[in-house]
Structure formats: C-alpha cells, structure tokens
C-alpha cells in the first residue's frame, strides 16, 4: 500500500513539474501576454516598455524560467494580474467554494445515484429500470450549462423559489472561518447564514450533479447486475442468508468497487462541470476563476497555478480512490 502511495506521489510531482514547464514556456511564447493584460486600453508604448522591464520580460527566457521555478518551489506563484493579489490567496479563497459545490454535487450524485442504480438493477427490465435508463441517458446528453440555465430560469425567475446566483444572500454578515459557507455558519452558530448558504447551494449542486449522477446510476446498475450474477451471491443464497444480509453484505460492497473508481474519475468531470455551473450561477469558485483568468485578461499566474491545482486534485483524489478501493477490496491490499 505504502508503495502505491509513494509511487503515486512521485508521479504527482513529476506530472506537476512537466505541466509547469510546459505551461510556462507555452505562455511565454504567446503574443499578448501579461504586459498587455496588465495595461488597459489607455496604455502607451512607454508604459508598455516600463512594464516589460519591471516584469523582467526583457531577460532571457531561461532566467525567467529559473526565477519562476525558484518561486514555485518556495510556494510562490506570483500575483494575479487582474487583482494584484497573491495567487495563493486568490486560489485559497475560490477553492472552498468549488469544493463546497463539488462535495454537495457528489453527495447528491452518490446519495441518489447508488440507490437509484441499485433499484434499477433489481427491477431490471421493468418500468423503473427503463425510466431510469432513459433519464440518465438524457442526463448525460444534455449540455449542463443549458440545464443550469433552464433550472435557473424556471425556479428563480418565474417563481422566486431559489436565489438566482451567488453563494449567500448579499449583505449577510457571515463570518469566514473555513471558507465553506455552510460549515462556517454551523461553526459560528450563525444557523440562518448556514441555511441561507445551503439554500443557495441547491440549484448549482443539482446542476453539477447531473452528469455524475447519471453515470453513477448507470455504473451502479451495471455493477449490481454483474455482481448478482456472481457465483458468491449464489453461495450466499445457498447459505439461506436473508435477503437484506445478502444485499448489504454481499452485493453492495462488491458492486461498489467500480462505483468508487467512477466517483474518482468523476472528480475530473466535476471540476470541468464546475467551470460551467459556476459561470451560470455566479459562484465564486475555481471555475469562475478559470473563466475570469482566461477571458478577463489572461491572468497567467493564476492560470498556471490552477492547472497545477486541478492536476494535483485529480491525482490526489484518485489516490484516495485507490486507497478506498483497497479499503473495500482486500485483493488490492498488496502485501
């Protein structure tokens, strides 16, 4: 197990270094670049020149690279071009927002997906199963930003049921502790702030959950069907075990294995989906940060850090998945 973890970590570091180098040189080779992004439309050639010198872009590329590397190694990703804040601050502010959203979505997807998938499998070929299959197929096929858009239009405009955007009502005096608004409210006993944040979370989380939900339902269904066909289920039946015991102890645990992997892989989809969902719901998370960093003036330092972060999150989550896999499946516990 330890070997797998360390192997993954080494892999993580190498991947990150490779990504970093790639992104660095790529960015430097582009026209425009930070100078342009920093200067508004009122820039004059002088200011441009001053800025180029100030940023050290007149120096050879390898000097810039070594400086960049040195910074990164010391955990300094520079400042955001757009806001002038240290990138670490920008990201650590957006990160909890996205995590909050992603976790909520994952809770919905997993909490709903596994039971639904299980039910569909048990009702194989019957109405419930067919309906589930069709709905999940549509769930996979619908552009999620459009779904978000529709939900928002239906539930926040015609009937003011949910708030249209944001993470919390404007002007709510909530105290930042962790950056997870729902959690913060609970920690500081500002329960109504917590409730308010939760209320804001509903629609975005549902939107973001659609695709993972659909996929988890399908995987669970397929996996349960596979497991139901397994010899050991027949053995369990032959033991005369109660149906509930068989389901809980024998079917579910085995059926969960592929589901766990899927959940891990869905983190990627979740991050990507967050970009779209956050844009629709003005959710100030990493997704918004990415779009802002691209279209609102190419904010390269933030972009670089985001790319690394996304990769790191993805790899770490999958490492966690591997570990949980090992937890569920003893065959994987190596030595």
């Amino acid at each position, binding site marked *: 197990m330890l070997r797998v973890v360390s192997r993954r970590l080494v892999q993580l570091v190498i991947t990150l270094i490779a990504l970093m180098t790639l992104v660095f040189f790529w960015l430097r080779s582009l026209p425009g670049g930070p100078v342009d992004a920093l200067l508004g439309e009122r*820039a004059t050639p002088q*200011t441009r020149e001053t800025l180029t010198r*100030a*940023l050290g872009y007149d120096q050879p590329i390898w000097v810039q690279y070594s400086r960049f590397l040195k*910074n990164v190694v010391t955990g*300094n990703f*520079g400042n955001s071009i757009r806001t002038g804040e240290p990138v670490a601050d920008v990201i650590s502010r957006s990160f909890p927002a996205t995590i909050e959203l992603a976790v909520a979505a994952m809770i919905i997807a997993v909490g709903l997906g596994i039971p639904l998938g299980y039910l569909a499998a048990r009702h194989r070929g019957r109405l419930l199963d067919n309906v589930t299959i069709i709905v999940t197929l549509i769930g996979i096929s619908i552009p999620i930003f459009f779904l978000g858009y529709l939900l928002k239009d239906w539930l926040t405009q015609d009937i003011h049921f949910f708030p*249209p955007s944001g993470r919390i009502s404007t002007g709510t005096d909530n105290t930042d502790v962790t950056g997870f608004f729902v959690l913060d409210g609970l920690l500081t006993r500002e329960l109504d702030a917590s409730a308010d944040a939760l209320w804001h979370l509903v629609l975005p989380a549902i939107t973001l959950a659609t695709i993972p939900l659909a996929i988890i339902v399908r995987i669970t269904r397929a996996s349960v069907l596979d497991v139901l066909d397994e010899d050991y289920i027949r053995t369990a039946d032959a033991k005369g075990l109660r149906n509930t015991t068989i389901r809980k102890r024998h079917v579910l645990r085995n059926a969960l294995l592929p589901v766990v992997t899927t959940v891990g892989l869905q983190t990627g989809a979740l991050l990507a989906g967050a970009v779209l969902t956050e844009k629709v719901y003005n959710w100030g998370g990493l997704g918004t940060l990415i779009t802002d960093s691209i279209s609102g003036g*190419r904010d390269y*330092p933030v972009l670089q850090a985001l790319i690394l972060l996304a990769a790191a999150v993805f790899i770490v989550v999958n490492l966690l998945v591997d570990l949980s896999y090992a937890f569920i499946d003893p065959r994987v516990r190596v030595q």
Partner: protein
Amino acid sequence: AESDRGEDDEAATSGTFIFAGAGDPKNFDPIFNDDGESFRPIRQIYDTLVTHKPGTADLEGGLAESWTNDPTGKIWTFTLRQGVKFHDGTALDAAAVCANFDRWYNMKGEAAQSQMIYYTDIFGGFAGSPDALYDNCKAQDASTAVLTLKKYKGAFPGAFALTAFSIASPAAMKQYDADTVTQNGDSFSYSTFANEHPTGTGAFTYGGWDKATGEITLNKNPDYWGDKAKVDKMIIKIIKDENTRKQELRAGTVQAIDFPAPADRKALADEGYEVLERPAFNILYLGINQKNNPKLKDLRVRQAIAYALNREQLVQTKGPGGSVVADQFLPSSVLGYAPDVQKYEYSVDKAKQLLSEAGATGLTLNFYYPTEVSRPYMPNPQEIFTVLANDLQAAGIKVNGVPRPWNGGFKDDVQQFGKQDLHILGWTGDYNDPGNFVGTFFGRPKVEFGDDALTEMFTAITKADATVDQAAKKTAFEQVNRDLAAKWLPAVPIWHAPPAIVTTKNVEGLVPSPLTAEEFNTVSITK
C-alpha cells in the same frame, strides 16, 4: 457574531443600497487604477479637485471650490473648500493636495510607475523624465494650492476631474505604505493602503471587500462636506454575467444593475424597472489601416467604405437603447463638435461607384474584431462585425474576418503590429475635452491607422490641442472634425452607445453620468 439576517430584509427599505457591478476592482488607490469597475467604489470614497455636474460632463468645483489658470496655461491655482476632513480625521488642506501631486511625480520604481496609466498619459512622466509635465506644487496658504506645469496641456482642467487623480489622505498613505508596489511573479502587490485602508474625503468610507462573495461595502460618511449619503450603507455586488445581474434584480436581491444587456432593456422597462440611460460619451469606430493595402490610401476607397455601412440599421438592430449614429469621433456634448461635418448616408451605389472610380473593385480586406469582450461602446463585437462585414460585402468588398481574443492578441495585432486592414474599436471619454477623443486617436502616428499617413492631420490636431483660448480651441477642433470626415477619414465613426443603469422602482436620486462616474450619495431607497 450574531446573524444579520433581519437586516437583510430591512436593507431593501432603509439603510442599504445594493448595486450590481460588472467586474472586480483592482484596488482602491486611485492613482494605480484605470478602469471603471475600480473607479466606481473609489469615486465614492474619494473626491477630486474638480468634478462634474451630476449627469453631465461639465465641470464644477470639487475639493477645490474654484480654480484659475494663468494665461500661459501653465499655472493652476486651486481654492480649496474649508473644513473638509479625510476619513482618518486629518484635514484636507493645500499641503495635502500638493503632497498628492508630489507623490505622483516622485513615484519610485518601474513597477509602480507602470501602473499609473493616467498619470503617464496626462502628466507625461516622472521625476527625471524630460517629458514630465509637472513642475511643482506649492501651498500658498492652507486653502490655496498652486500647481505649476512645464507647459500648457489642453486636457486641463478636465483632467483634474479624473478619478485617478483623486486626493488621498497623506497621513494614511504614509501610515499604510501607499507607495510600496512590489513585483511578484508576473504581477504586483499593492500596499495595505490600496487594499485595506483607502482614505479619502468621499461621501462613503471604505467598509471592506469580501472577495469570497464579491461584495464591496461602503459606509456612509457622516462627516461628508457635501450632501451626505442618504443610505447608511452601500454594497457593490460584483456579478460578471449580465444575465445574472438581471435575474438578481428581478429576484429583488439587488436594487440596481449596471450594463444591462441591450436586449433586456425594453423588457425590464416594461416590467416596471427604471432604465437610466447615460448620456452618450463614447464612440465606436471602424478603423482603417492604410499600410497593408495601398488601395486604402485612396480617400475614395475609405469613403466608399463609409457609404457602404448602413449605420442607421446597425443602431436600430444592434445598438443598445439610446444609441445614435456617430458622424464624428466625439459626442455632441463635447467642445469642438461640428454639426456640419460630411455625413456619409448609406448608399451602396455610391460606394460601388467610388470603388470603381478608385479602381478598387474586388477589394479584399482583413477585418479584425475582438472576442471574449464586451465594452460599453461595443456590447457584442461579433455581431457588430457580422453586420458591418455584411454591408461591406454588399458593396462588393470582400471581407476576411479575423477574430482575436481581446487580451490575447487583438490589441497587439491591431495596435502594435497593425496586421489588420479594418477593425472595430472605440473609446469612452474621460473628461470633456476634444483632445481626449480625437487627440487620442489621431493626434500622432499610430500603427493602428498606418503610422506614416496623414501628417497634415497630426499637426492640425496637435495645434488645436495646444490652443489655450477656449473659443479658438473650439473652432480649431470643429475644423479638425470637418476635415476628419471629409478629407482624412482615417476611420469611420459608427455610433455613440450610452450604457445604462437599471434600478428598481424604489431607488431614487440616482443620476446617470455620461462618464459612468455616478456618485451614490444622492441615492435613497423608498418603501
């Protein structure tokens, strides 16, 4: 901390005014900023020496009750308002004003200097630079500040009203290290003054910026020298998506939104929202680069392009409400506007005729247009391009559209490398001065229009700009505008498109400013 949910409900009716802005500010040190989203809160926190009459671009006294200019145009004397206090309690006096001018001039470090866009533009340069306009500033007495420049500049006194030149508390700047701008990676860190303790004399004091929720809080300054704010608190909520701004307005969670989508204006008005149109103070033009395609050097060809454009229809179909066709590069409210310039009425026949006269039939032009951007004067560049390109095609000019991202190439390609034959771009005026419009575009050789062309135009504009006498200046610029339209035609003006603010019915006293420089102390919220 206890919950303030209750306050939320009250907010709509009493103390708090929530305004949805469209983007993040950079920081709150006026001199380091150059964009509207930063200026919006800055304008509430600070005052300038000279300011604009609400709803116009006309000047009136700000921190300076009055000002005079000597005949050479180099010496400006400001008579300051009495009893004005900065938010930190220190008094605003001539010394404080001069401290600001000195601070700007003596700013150290390329990092900081590179961020002072307006200063470089207006004041030419810093201590030690031969182009520097600033000479000195003396506190004649507590309420009289005398600013001496090295030479006359037409931008003044309008430029004194620029939000970038707001007067900040020297004590606070000192305390919070305002001048420290450090470079870190590809960008800069600003001081705590700029980020956490902006201190001016404005109607609101800075209450904090919650970046996680995108809310900037401004509190009423009870000691304000002018009309005290009618609300206790103002929140600028940053919502980048125009659609979401509209939805929040409808949900009643904000009371005013900036920059509604052009398509939504009518619907919102019909629903009973107040659509406040700002008087037009911007210009969208179709730039022509004469360098790459020699045919464009021929005035007839440029005129043909002007004739080919159905600007009336463009305004009708794509122009935000209240937009008008532009026949010259400045709006009618600006000095030097000439009502009698040559107008190019839409005529495909004329365009074709001119083209064939110039032997330029079958012309193919590279038309650059920006993507990933929306500007007040250009809400949807792609659509505008499509319509313009269509018109040009109809006149027999082949158009090769080149979309480039605004920040990732468009500005470079157009303004630095001049790759285009045609492009669309525009400008929002900073102050009421013709030089701020035509001077910026055509006052000197620019890659954007093919640099070596039209020396005659440069000298004419430079001369007009240097004219001290206002009447003479007016005539000079009127002539410039007439010539621009008839003789030079370096670009085709398209429209003046005023951006709007939409508020709920119960918001009163919001006066839209042509410069998008609204002051919110006048805003009140009724039941």
